[in-house]
C-alpha cells in the first residue's frame, strides 16, 4: 500500500470576484508516494504545487477525488479526526513560519504541546531534536536571532517533534542561499535515511530534485505532465516542461547562437553523446573514439550527478572520414546514444 495515494484529485477555487473565472489549481492529479520515498514535485510558479501538498494534510479540502494517507481517506475527515492525522504529518515552509513570540526551544515544543506530551518529557524530546539538527546551543534564542538556514533547521526539528511518518516541504530552500540550501537538503536526506520519514518536496529548482528526490512529478497548470524515478526523468524527459527543467541542471545541448558559435570555431561534424551509468563511462567513450583513429575534441557539455548517479551529455567535434566515424560510434556499444547535431 502506498504511503500517500492521491487519486483523481481536483481543487478549484471559486472566482474571487463575481463574474470572474474559477481557478482550477489542481486538475485531476493521481500520484502514489511509497513509504521511504523522497518524492519531488516540480513546476513553475502557479502550477499548483503548494495547493497539492496542502490537500495532503487537509489544510484545504479537495473539490474532487480522494487522498489516502496510510490507508486513511483524509478527504473524508474533519475536525478532531483531521487534526489527529495532521499531527502525524510534519510540514516545513519557505518562510520557516516560526513563532516570533517563542524561543527556539518553545517553538520545537509546540507540536508536543498539541499532542499533549507532559512537560518533563517535552524538554528531553526538544533537546534531542535540537541536537539532531545541530542547534542545541540556540535553544534559548529567538527566531530573529538565527540565520535563514538555522531557522529552517528549527522548522525541521519542529516538524519532526511529534514523530511524523511523513514530512511535507513546500519550497523549503527557496529563501536560502546555495550553501545553506545544501545544508538543509543534507539534513532532509538524513531525516529520510536515518528516521525513515517519507518526504514530499515541492520546489521550482531542478537542482533540489537532483540532490534528494528519488522520484519526481512535473506539474504544469494543475496537472502532472510527467512523473517517474528522478534519474529516468533526467535522462529521458518526455515533455517540453521536463526538458526545460532538466536543462537547468544538466549542461544543455547547444542550440541557437551557442551552436552557431561552435560551428564557427570547430570544423568537422558535431555529435552529442549522452550516456547513463547503465552503459559506458566517459573514458570508454573517448577510448573507443581514439582507437578508431578519429580526431575529436570535446566542445560542450559535461557529466552530472543525479541522485548520486552519473549522467553525461557531451558534444564533440569529430574530424575524419565517414566510415571511421561510423565504426567508432558502433564500437562504443550500449548505454550510449550518439546523435549528430544537424541543426
Amino acid at each position: 500500500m502506498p504511503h500517500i495515494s492521491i487519486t483523481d484529485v481536483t481543487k478549484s477555487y471559486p472566482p474571487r470576484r463575481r463574474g470572474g473565472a474559477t481557478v482550477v489549481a489542481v486538475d485531476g492529479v493521481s500520484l502514489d508516494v511509497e513509504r521511504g520515498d523522497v518524492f519531488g514535485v516540480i513546476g513553475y510558479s502557479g502550477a499548483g504545487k503548494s495547493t497539492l501538498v496542502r490537500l495532503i494534510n487537509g489544510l484545504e479540502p479537495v473539490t474532487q477525488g480522494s487522498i489516502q494517507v496510510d490507508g486513511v481517506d483524509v478527504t473524508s475527515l474533519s475536525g478532531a479526526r483531521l487534526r489527529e492525522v495532521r499531527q502525524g504529518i510534519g510540514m516545513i515552509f519557505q518562510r520557516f513560519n516560526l513563532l516570533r513570540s517563542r524561543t527556539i526551544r518553545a517553538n520545537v515544543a509546540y507540536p508536543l504541546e498539541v499532542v499533549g506530551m507532559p512537560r518533563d518529557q517535552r524538554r528531553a524530546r526538544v533537546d534531542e531534536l535540537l541536537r539532531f539538527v545541530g542547534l542545541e546551543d540556540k535553544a534559548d534564542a529567538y527566531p530573529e536571532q538565527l540565520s535563514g538556514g538555522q531557522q529552517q533547521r528549527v522548522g525541521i526539528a519542529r516538524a519532526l517533534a511529534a514523530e511524523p511518518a511523513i514530512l511535507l516541504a513546500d519550497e523549503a530552500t527557496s529563501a536560502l542561499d546555495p550553501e545553506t540550501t545544501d545544508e538543509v537538503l543534507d539534513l532532509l536526506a538524513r531525516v529520510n535515511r536515518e528516521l525513515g520519514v517519507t518526504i514530499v518536496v515541492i520546489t521550482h529548482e531542478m537542482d533540489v530534485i537532483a540532490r534528494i528526490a528519488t522520484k519526481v512529478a512535473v506539474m504544469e497548470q494543475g496537472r502532472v505532465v510527467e512523473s517517474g524515478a528522478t534519474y529516468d526523468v533526467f535522462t529521458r524527459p518526455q515533455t517540453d516542461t521536463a526538458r526545460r527543467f532538466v536543462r537547468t541542471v544538466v549542461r544543455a545541448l547547444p542550440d541557437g547562437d551557442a551552436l552557431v558559435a561552435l560551428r564557427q570555431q570547430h570544423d568537422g561534424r558535431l555529435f552529442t553523446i549522452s550516456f547513463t551509468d547503465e552503459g559506458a563511462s566517459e573514458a570508454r567513450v573517448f577510448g573507443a573514439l581514439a582507437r578508431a583513429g578519429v580526431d575529436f575534441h570535446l566542445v560542450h557539455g559535461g557529466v552530472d550527478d543525479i541522485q548520486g548517479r552519473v549522467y553525461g551529455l557531451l558534444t564533440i567535434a569529430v574530424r575524419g572520414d565517414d566510415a571511421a566515424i561510423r565504426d567508432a560510434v558502433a564500437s562504443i556499444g550500449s548505454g550510449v546514444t550518439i546523435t549528430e547535431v544537424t541543426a
Partner: protein
Amino acid sequence: MNDLVERLQELLPTLFEQTGITLWLVAVSLLFGGIGGLLVGTALYVTRRGGVLAQPVAFWVLNALVNTIRPIPFIIFIVALQPVARAVLGTGLGTNVIIFSISIAATFGIARIVEQNLISVDPGVVEAARAMGASPWRIIRTVILPEAFGPLILGYTFATVALIDMSSVASIIGGEGLGAYALDYGYRRFDPVVTWSALAIIIVVTQLVQGLGNWLARRILRH
C-alpha cells in the same frame, strides 16, 4: 504670584481626589472595555473569510454592530445609553454610569484596534499551527494572541489615552473626575487656575500611560 501658590495649595486636596477618581474610572472602564474589545475584536478576526473559525454571517453581524456604534460621538452615546444604564444600574447619573458607558463604547472601539493588530499576524504561523494539528481555540490562545502581543500593548495604550479623553465628559451626567472638575469649577465658575491645573494633570497622566505602554511594547517586541 503668592496668590497663585496659595490658591494651588487650596485646590490641591480636591485635585488629588479628582485625579484618583479619573484614574479609577479609566482603570475600571479599561478592564471591562478591554476584555470586551478583546473578545469582540478576536471574534471579528477569527470569523472573517479565511479565519480559523470562518463564519461569514457572524462576521457580518459583528462588523455591522461595530460600524454602527463606533462613530457615535461619545457625548451623544452617553445620553442615548442613559435608559439602558437606568435599567442595569438603577440610576442614570453618576460615576458608575460613566464607567458603564465608557466600557461599552470602548468595547467597540478597542474591538477594531484588536482586529487590526491580529490581522498583522503572519498568516504563515497560523498555517504552521494548523498543519501541526492545533485546534482553532488553541491557535487563538497560543499563536494569534501571543504573536500580536506587542502591537496589542500599543493599541491598548492608544485606547487608554482615548478613555481618559472620554472620561472628561462625565460632568454631563453628574459624574466626577478631572474633566468634570475642570468643566464644573473651572469653566462654569470662570476659574482658569482650576482648568489649567486639571489640564496639567491630564497631560502628565497621559504621558505616563504612553511612556509605560511604549516601554512594555519595546520589551515584548525585543527591539
